[in-house]
């Protein structure tokens, strides 16, 4: 069970709010100053630039720069609230849509005002979140048409070009870039694909003039620990600058030996890095990443090789299987790490991992292959001793490891958010059916879930660039 925690030592966060375990009603949101529209779009854009708000999907791109790019790319823009959270260790986006749909929809309306957008979408896979968002739209109809689009819950579905393809009626799979969505997105229009937490912070920036810096410099984090019997995971809102060690202590992991950072995207860091501040710039300077704010700590006794093997096995299973190099590359890295955990690795495996950690970067249409390469490289850098010892024999933590359950081990459960007391549980209105996956979808596993590229519909020839192919995360996301 994932707890929502508000540490006594920290001021309550503006996004987590006063009642994070109950869905906020429109009345409560308005009573707290929401939907007021007191800040004009040009002023709001200037405030976002001044506060330096970064996107919270994973890439940490400055929100104001992206808004301005969409605004300047042409008329009839489209805005998308991206709530499809493919990182298995992150729950903050689904919590946000379940608990504070009005905050996200207010932010979407503000983004539409800045970019001149005529329509908006909320893109998600969580059926509970979809229900809360539809109810919020009925409670407080927005000024522009907003449609809820359901996606499959996969690692790549929230990547910005996958978002555009799915909204346009295609598969939720990444496309080659350029063009990027800000140039040509939904229906060919300039499109802002913004993470839902980013939009929440945009709405708060408009509503709370005295807190703009604090809104830009705090973030939702999903904290968990690796290994059986580890401390339960937690969702928190923390200011930039808190150290990783402080966060580990917050969920009851004293003296961790390292951490898996940024979902699967920031790679592994060792114990010396735990003194680092949780800050996108400080983490980037140290060679890791805040990403979506998901951190999995390694308690004493947890094996970093096993954690890396789980992470890459999950990425290999989640490859969209569009890029041959991603299919082959994730399988190669995953196979090498699995052999290390089993004590069956060849002597040359460390050279292979070193070569792949550099040579596979930037070669896929999205960032999934980069994440696998980064995991391999960061494991070698942060944990050279444990890696070498696995050449001789698996460690005790690896000995009982079942490779088939990598997804279960990486997945954090979304916190429960109850309905507000004043609303009926269901208003009886018909609702669109949930997204139906085109392929049989087993439960979480480490087997490929996407069809072979040869059976997938071919795309028309897009403009392409290997050099400009670039991690989404916007995913990463953006």
């Amino acid at each position, binding site marked *: 069970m994932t707890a929502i925690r508000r540490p006594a030592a920290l001021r309550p966060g503006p996004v987590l709010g006063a009642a994070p375990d109950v869905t906020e009603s429109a009345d409560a949101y308005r009573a707290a100053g929401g939907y007021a529209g007191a800040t004009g779009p040009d002023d709001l854009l200037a405030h976002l630039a001044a506060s330096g708000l970064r996107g919270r999907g994973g890439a940490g791109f400055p929100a104001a720069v992206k808004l301005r790019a969409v605004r300047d790319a042409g008329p009839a823009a489209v805005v998308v609230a991206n709530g499809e959270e493919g990182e298995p260790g992150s729950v903050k986006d689904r919590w946000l849509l379940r608990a504070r749909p009005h905050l996200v929809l207010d932010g979407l309306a503000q983004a539409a005002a800045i970019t001149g957008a005529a329509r908006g979408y909320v893109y998600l896979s969580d059926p509970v979140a979809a229900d809360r968002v539809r109810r919020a739209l009925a409670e407080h109809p927005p000024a522009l048409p907003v449609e809820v689009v359901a996606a499959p819950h996969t690692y790549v579905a929230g990547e910005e070009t996958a978002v555009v393809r799915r909204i346009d009626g295609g598969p939720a799979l990444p*496309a*080659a870039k350029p063009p990027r969505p800000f140039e040509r997105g939904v229906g060919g229009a300039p499109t802002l694909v913004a993470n839902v937490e980013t939009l929440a912070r945009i709405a708060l920036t408009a509503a709370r003039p005295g807190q703009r810096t604090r809104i830009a410099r705090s973030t939702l984090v999903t904290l968990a620990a690796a290994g059986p019997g580890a401390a339960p995971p937690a969702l928190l809102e923390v200011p930039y600058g808190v150290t990783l060690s402080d966060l580990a202590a917050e969920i009851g992991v004293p003296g961790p030996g390292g951490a898996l950072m940024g979902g699967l995207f920031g790679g592994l860091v060792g114990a010396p890095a735990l003194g680092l501040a949780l800050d996108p710039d400080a983490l980037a300077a140290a060679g890791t990443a805040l990403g979506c704010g998901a951190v999995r700590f390694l308690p004493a006794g947890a094996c970093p090789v096993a954690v890396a093997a789980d992470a890459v096995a999950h990425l290999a299973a989640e490859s969209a299987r*569009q*890029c*041959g*190099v*991603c299919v*082959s*590359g994730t399988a190669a890295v995953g196979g090498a790490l699995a052999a290390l955990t089993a004590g069956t690795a060849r002597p040359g495996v460390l050279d292979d991992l070193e070569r792949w950690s550099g*040579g596979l970067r930037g*070669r*896929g*249409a999205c960032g999934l292959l980069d994440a696998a390469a980064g995991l391999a490289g960061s494991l070698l850098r942060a944990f050279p001793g444990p890696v070498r010892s696995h050449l001789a024999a698996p460690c005790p933590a690896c000995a009982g490891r079942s490779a088939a359950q990598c997804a279960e081990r990486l997945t954090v459960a979304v916190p429960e958010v109850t309905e507000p007391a004043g609303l009926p549980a269901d208003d009886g209105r018909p609702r669109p059916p949930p997204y139906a996956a085109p392929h049989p979808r087993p439960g979480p596993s480490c087997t490929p879930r996407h069809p072979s*590229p040869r059976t997938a519909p071919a*795309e028309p*020839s*897009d*403009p*392409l*660039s*290997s*050099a400009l*192919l670039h991690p989404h995360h916007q995913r990463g996301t953006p």
Partner: protein
Amino acid sequence: MKLLLDSTRCQGYGLCQEHAPELVELDEWGYAQVIDLAVPAGAEDTARACADSCPNSALRVER
């Protein structure tokens, strides 16, 4: 001139590398990697032939 690769289309035929070993190399699985996005001066015709050689239109040149 730029030589651009769509990695979702590359099927590892390898004809690009036969046409332009100075512009494209193949990785250990046979998938193409453009050595330098910017085509060196004087190699423009080679880059065009290289892009034309792909049976799956994974490569193209752009001014």
